[in-house]
C-alpha cells in the first residue's frame, strides 16, 4: 500500500512543482513529465504486487469529514484498472513533453502538466477509494482536471464550446452518482463501501442510476455526445489518456456497483447488452462519416465502450441466469478489452497527434502519403488500426474472442437453460460484434489508407516530418504492448480470474472459476495460430529481403493508365471511400450533403460537401438544452439588479414562512 501512497505523493509533487515552475516552461515540462512517470511506476508496482500475491492491500485514515473516512484499498478489480491507467499515463507523459513544447503556447505548459498529474492521481484514487465520499471527491477532481486539460487551447472558440459540453455532461452524470451513493448508504447511515446495503426492490433503480451516471463518463450512447467534442479539442496525449483510460473509470464504477447489488433482475443485463450494442454499432457508424481523425477516434471510443458493455452485459446475464461460462468469460472479455482499448486507442491518438504535429492538420482529406515521411508513426498506427478492428493476430481479437466464447460455450451446452431467450442473445452478441468488427475494419482502411497511403493531398502533407524520438518511442512501446497481450492471451485468463471473481456474487464463484480450464483450449489454440502466423510472416519477409538484396529496388510512379496529367486530387477521398456505407445507413446517420454538380458541356465549377452531425446531439440534447435555456431566460426577469427588490424577496419569503408555519 505504501507504494501506491508514494505514487500518489510523487504525482502530486510533480503537479505542484510544474505549476510553481510555470514561468520556465521547459523545466515545468520536465518536472511534470518526470512526476507522472515516477508516480505511475510506483502505482504499477503496487498493483502488480496485489495481483501477484492475490491479497488486497488497504489502509484507512481518519478524516475530519462527516460521512467519510479516507478508506483506500487495492483489490484485484482495482489492480486490473490501475495497471492500464498508470501505463497509459506514463507513456503519454513521455510523449507529451516534446509534444506540448512544439504545439502549444508557453504559458499553458506549466498549468497543463499540473492538471495532467492531477488527473492521473485522481484517476488512481477513484479506482482505489473505498468510501463513497472519497470516491465522489476524486471523481469530481478527475472531471475538473480533465476539463481544464480540454481547455488547454482555450483561445479557440470551438475548444471552449467543447469544454462546456464536457463540463455539463460530467455534472449531470455526477448528479446521478450522488443519488446512487446516498441510496446505497441510506440504510446503514454510512458511505463506506463495505457497509453499503440495498433495500429490497431497489436494485434495478440503483443499476439504472449507475448506468446513467457512470455511462456518461464511459460514453455509452446516447450519453456520448461529449466525446466527439472533447477529444479533438484536447492535446493528443491528453486525448490518449482521456479516451484510453479515463472513460474506463466509468466502466470500473459500473462493475464496482454491480458488486454492491447482490440480486440483479435479468432485465439489467439485457439493458446493458442493448446499450452496448447501440454504442458499438452507432459509434462505428458515426466514426465512418467523420473527416477529422480525432473525432473519428472519439467515436471509436464509443464503439469500444460498447464492446466492453456487451461483455459486461453477457457477464450480468450469466449471473442472473446462473450460467458460469457467460458470467466468467463476459466479464473477463470486458476487463481484457479495457486493457486492450487503453493500449491501442492511446496508440492511435498519439499517432494522430504525431500527424497533426508533423503536418498541422487533422483533416483526413488533406493528408495522404505520410507513410514515406513518417514511417514509424505510420507503422504503429497500422498496428493500432488492426488491433482496434479486432483483427488477428492482435490484442483486440483476443478480448472479443473471450466474449464470443462465453456465448458460444453456453449455447453449445446440451443442458442449456430453456428460460433464456437464446436466439436474441446470440443475434445481439455474436451478430453485433461481427458487424462492429467489419465496420471498424472499413473505417480504419479509410483512415489509414487516406492518411498514410497514396499521394499527399495538400502542401501540408507534402512537407510533413516524422515525430521526435520520445514520441516515436512512446508509440513503438504501445504497439509492442498490443502484440505482447495478443501473444500471451491465455495468461490473462489467470491474471483476470481474481478480478472477475470479485464481481461475481460469492455463491457463483466456484462455478465461475471452473470455467478457466474449459475455455483454455480455444484460447491457447488461437494463440498458437498467432505465433505461427507471425513466425510465417517473419520468415517470408526475411526471405523477401534476402532475395531482393540481390537486385536493386527502384521507385517509379504508379501506372496511370496512360492519362497524361494525373493529380493527387484524383485519388479516392475519405468521404468517397466511406460513401456507400454512409448511404446504406443514412437513416441513422442523416448526413448533410451539399452538392453542386457540374452543369453543361464545359463546367466551370462544381462542389461537394458532406457533414454528419451527431444524431443525439442534434435531435435530443440540442432541443432539451434549448428548452432549459428558454426557461432560464424567463427567470432573468427576476435578475434585475435592484437591491430593494432582492431584499423584498427575502422579506416576503420570511413573512410567508412565518404566516404559513404560525398563522
Amino acid at each position, binding site marked *: 500500500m505504501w507504494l501506491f501512497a508514494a505514487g500518489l505523493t510523487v504525482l502530486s509533487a510533480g503537479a505542484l512543482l510544474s505549476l510553481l515552475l510555470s514561468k520556465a516552461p521547459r523545466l515545468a515540462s520536465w518536472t511534470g513529465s518526470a512526476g507522472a512517470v515516477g508516480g505511475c511506476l510506483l502505482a504499477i508496482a503496487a498493483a502488480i504486487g496485489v495481483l501477484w500475491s492475490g491479497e488486497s492491500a488497504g489502509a484507512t485514515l481518519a478524516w475530519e469529514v462527516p460521512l467519510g473516512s479516507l478508506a483506500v484499498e487495492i483489490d484485484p478489480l482495482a489492480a486490473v484498472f490501475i495497471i492500464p491507467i498508470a501505463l497509459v499515463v506514463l507513456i503519454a507523459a513521455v510523449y507529451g513533453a516534446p509534444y506540448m513544447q512544439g504545439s502549444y503556447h508557453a504559458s499553458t505548459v506549466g498549468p497543463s502538466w499540473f492538471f495532467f498529474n492531477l488527473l492521473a492521481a485522481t484517476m488512481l484514487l477513484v479506482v482505489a477509494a473505498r468510501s463513497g465520499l472519497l470516491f465522489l471527491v476524486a471523481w469530481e477532481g478527475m472531471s475538473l482536471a480533465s476539463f481544464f486539460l480540454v481547455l488547454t487551447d482555450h483561445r479557440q472558440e470551438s475548444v471552449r464550446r467543447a469544454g462546456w459540453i464536457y463540463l455539463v455532461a460530467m455534472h449531470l452524470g455526477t448528479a446521478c452518482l450522488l443519488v446512487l451513493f446516498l441510496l446505497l448508504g441510506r440504510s446503514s447511515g454510512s458511505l463506506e463501501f463495505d457497509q453499503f446495503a440495498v433495500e429490497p426492490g431497489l436494485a434495478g433503480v440503483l443499476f439504472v442510476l449507475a448506468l446513467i451516471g457512470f455511462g456518461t463518463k464511459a460514453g455509452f450512447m446516447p450519453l456520448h455526445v461529449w466525446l466527439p467534442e472533447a477529444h479533438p479539442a484536447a492535446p493528443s496525449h491528453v486525448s490518449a489518456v482521456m479516451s484510453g483510460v479515463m472513460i474506463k473509470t466509468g466502466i470500473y464504477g459500473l462493475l464496482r456497483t454491480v458488486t454492491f447489488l447482490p440480486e440483479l433482475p435479468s432485465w439489467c443485463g439485457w439493458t446493458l447488452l442493448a446499450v452496448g450494442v447501440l454504442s458499438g454499432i452507432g459509434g462505428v457508424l458515426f466514426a465512418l462519416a467523420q473527416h477529422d481523425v480525432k473525432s473519428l477516434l472519439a467515436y471509436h471510443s464509443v464503439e469500444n465502450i460498447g464492446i466492453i458493455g456487451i461483455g459486461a452485459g453477457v457477464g450480468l446475464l450469466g449471473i442472473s441466469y446462473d450460467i458460469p461460462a457467460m458470467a466468467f468469460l463476459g466479464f473477463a472479455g470486458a476487463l481484457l478489452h479495457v486493457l486492450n482499448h487503453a493500449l491501442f486507442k492511446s496508440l492511435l491518438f498519439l499517432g494522430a497527434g504525431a500527424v497533426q504535429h508533423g503536418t498541422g492538420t487533422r483533416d483526413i482529406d488533406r493528408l495522404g502519403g505520410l507513410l514515406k515521411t513518417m514511417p514509424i508513426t505510420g507503422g504503429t498506427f497500422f498496428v493500432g488500426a488492426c488491433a482496434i478492428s479486432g483483427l488477428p493476430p492482435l490484442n483486440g481479437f483476443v478480448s472479443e474472442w473471450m466474449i464470443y466464447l462465453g456465448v458460444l460455450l453456453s449455447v453449445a451446452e446440451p443442458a442449456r437453460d430453456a428460460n433464456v431467450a437464446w436466439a436474441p442473445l446470440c443475434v445481439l452478441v455474436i451478430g453485433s460484434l461481427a458487424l462492429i468488427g467489419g465496420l471498424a475494419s472499413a473505417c480504419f482502411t479509410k483512415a489509414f489508407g487516406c492518411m498514410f497511403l497514396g499521394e499527399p493531398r495538400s502542401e501540408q502533407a507534402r512537407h510533413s516530418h516524422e515525430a521526435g524520438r520520445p514520441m516515436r518511442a512512446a508509440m513503438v512501446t504501445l504497439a509492442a504492448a498490443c502484440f505482447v497481450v495478443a501473444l500471451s492471451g491465455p495468461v490473462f485468463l489467470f491474471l483476470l480470474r481474481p478480478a472477475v471473481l470479485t464481481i461475481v456474487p460469492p455463491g457463483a464463484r466456484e462455478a465461475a472459476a471452473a470455467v478457466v480450464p474449459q475455455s483454455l483450449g480455444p484460447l491457447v489454440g488461437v494463440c498458437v495460430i498467432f505465433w505461427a502466423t507471425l513466425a510465417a510472416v517473419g520468415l517470408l519477409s526475411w526471405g523477401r529481403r534476402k532475395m531482393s538484396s540481390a537486385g536493386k529496388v527502384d521507385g517509379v510512379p504508379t501506372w496511370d493508365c496512360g492519362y497524361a496529367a494525373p493529380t493527387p486530387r484524383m485519388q479516392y477521398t475519405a468521404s468517397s471511400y466511406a460513401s456507400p456505407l454512409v448511404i446504406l445507413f443514412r437513416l441513422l446517420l442523416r448526413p448533410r450533403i451539399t452538392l453542386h454538380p457540374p452543369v453543361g458541356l464545359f463546367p466551370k465549377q462544381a462542389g461537394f460537401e458532406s457533414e454528419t452531425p451527431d444524431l443525439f446531439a442534434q435531435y435530443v440534447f440540442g432541443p432539451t438544452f434549448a428548452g432549459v435555456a428558454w426557461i432560464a431566460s424567463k427567470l432573468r426577469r427576476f435578475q434585475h*439588479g*435592484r437591491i*430593494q*427588490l432582492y*431584499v*423584498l424577496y427575502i*422579506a416576503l419569503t420570511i413573512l410567508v414562512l*412565518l*404566516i404559513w408555519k404560525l*398563522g
Partner: protein
Amino acid sequence: MALWLDVILVLLILTSLWLLGSSRLRACIQAVAFQGIMLGLIPLLCAWPDITVRLAAVAVLSMVVKAIVLPGMLRRAAREANVRYEVQPLIGFTTSLLLGIVLWGLAMHVSRQLPVTMLHVTPLLIPVAIFTIFCGFLLIVSRNTAVMQVIGYLALENGIYVFGWAFAIEDPLLVEMGVLLDVFVAVFVMGIMIYRLSREFDTIETDELDSLKE
C-alpha cells in the same frame, strides 16, 4: 422593573415608526442611535436587580457601538458622499406608516403563535422584536439611498438583538458577540458600498446599480 421595560419597548416601537415616517436623514440617524440606547438598557432591566459586572460591560459596550460609533460613521459617510438630507422614499411616508401599523398587527399575531415559554419578563418583548425586524426590512425595501438602507439594516439587527435577549438571558455573551460581529460586518460592507457607489456613479442611489446587470 417590568413597567420600565415596557416603557422602553414602547419607545422602541415609536422610534421604529419614526424611522418609517421621517423625511430627514439626520433625524433617522438620531432615531437609530436612540434605539441603540434603549437596547443597551434592556439587558440591565431584564436582569434587575442582580446585575453582574459582565452584564453591565456588555450593555455599556453595545450602547457605545450602537448609539455613538455606528451613527457617527453613518453621519460621516453621509457627509463625505454628499448625500442630500432628505430621505428619498419609493413608498410615501404616510403609506410607510400605515404599512408599519399593519406590520405591528402581524407581529402581534405571529408572536402569539410562537411556542415561546421563556417570557418571564414581559409579553411585549417578542412582538417588538419581530416588529423591529419587519420595519428594518421595510426600510431597506422602500428607501432609495444606501445610507437609508444601512439604517434599515441596523434596525433589523436591533430587532434580532431584542429577539436574542428574549431567548438567551442565561448566556448573553454568545448572542452579543454574534450580533456585534454582524453589525460590524454589515456597516463595513455597506460603508465600502456607499463609498464605491459615490465614486463610480457620483450618487449613492442604489437604483443606479441596475446598470451593472448584464
